[in-house]
């Protein structure tokens, strides 16, 4: 009686999954062992019967109905995908706009704090007209302009570099 490992080797031999050396060992076994031969025949017939006899099946729906379901599903998923892409695109647009605006606002606050009057009055120096402000650094100067009407402050920093 052959063991399970040998049974699996017989099958692997039938399926062409053994190395040449292992295949030769199994072929020798088949020549001298009647039990191995019988099992091999059983496996071989089961394999060949299946390989040649798969039942053909017909889809139990008409071509038009089946296709209409597929097309609707494709359209639904493409629409969902498009919706998903729209939101991040809008978000990206806002990010592009808000990032420089945020930097500009930060810079404006920084300059405003720096340019408070020394007596602690807390007034931003640029009011109705533009004022030139001297800075402690010789190579740098900045200008600020505030429009109350537009509720806007613009700060221009010049390093005097060519």
């Amino acid at each position, binding site marked *: 009686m052959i063991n399970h490992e040998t*049974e699996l080797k017989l099958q692997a031999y039938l399926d062409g999954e053994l190395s040449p050396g292992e295949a030769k060992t199994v072929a020798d076994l088949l020549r001298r062992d009647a039990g191995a031969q019988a099992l091999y025949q059983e496996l071989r017939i089961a394999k060949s019967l299946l390989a040649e006899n798969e039942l053909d099946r017909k889809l139990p729906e008409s071509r038009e109905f089946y296709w209409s379901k597929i097309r609707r599903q494709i359209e639904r998923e493409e629409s969902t995908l498009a919706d998903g892409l729209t939101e991040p695109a809008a978000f990206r647009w806002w990010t592009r706009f808000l990032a420089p605006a945020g930097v500009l606002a930060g810079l404006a606050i920084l300059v405003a704090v720096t340019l408070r009057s020394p007596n602690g009055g807390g007034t931003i120096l640029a009011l109705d007209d533009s004022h030139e402000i001297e800075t402690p650094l010789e190579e740098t100067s900045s200008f600020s302009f505030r429009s109350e009407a537009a509720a806007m402050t613009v700060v221009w920093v010049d390093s005097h570099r060519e």
Partner: protein
Amino acid sequence: MSQNLDFASADDKALVRAAQKGGMQAFEELVARHRDKIYGRAFSMMRNEEEAVDLSQEAWVKAWQRLKQFQGEASFVTWMTRIVINLCLDQLRKQKRLRAESIEQMDEELGGVERQMPVVTPNPTERLERGELRQRIDEALAKLSHEHRTVLILHEFEELEYKEIARRMRCSIGTVMSRLFYARRKMAVLLAGLKREELR
């Protein structure tokens, strides 16, 4: 290009090229040509008409979405069959997680009664018409567990090697060999039984 294409007479390659450019009509023709084959493979794995229709339909939707990835190494129908097989395997895995593992099922994994079965020589081809034989083989396949049936389908019908079956079924090659062995032995017994019935 797709506007000038005669869909009914065009070969699969031409239809795929047109569909890859967005031609829905070309894709519809591919669905019409291969829908029975794709449904048939889903049914052979799931053994349930409704599930097979749903999974085959899902396979076509996935195919449309991935059509640009199809490079034509294999035929279009082979590529489609692989998609539906993967969907069926995913579905079977989900169902297996939901099912309680019964002792009977575990026994079947290990070979169960097939382990002690005497060797038989099924040869029902002598007495049965081909159509009837196919029907009987299909009925025998339906009596196998999902694991045994799937390994037989992938090996005998799809002609995949042990290694590829193991990869798709997410198990070891040893498990594939063992399942295939017991599945064949059970099929041999079931088909030998058919022969005895025929002789009565």
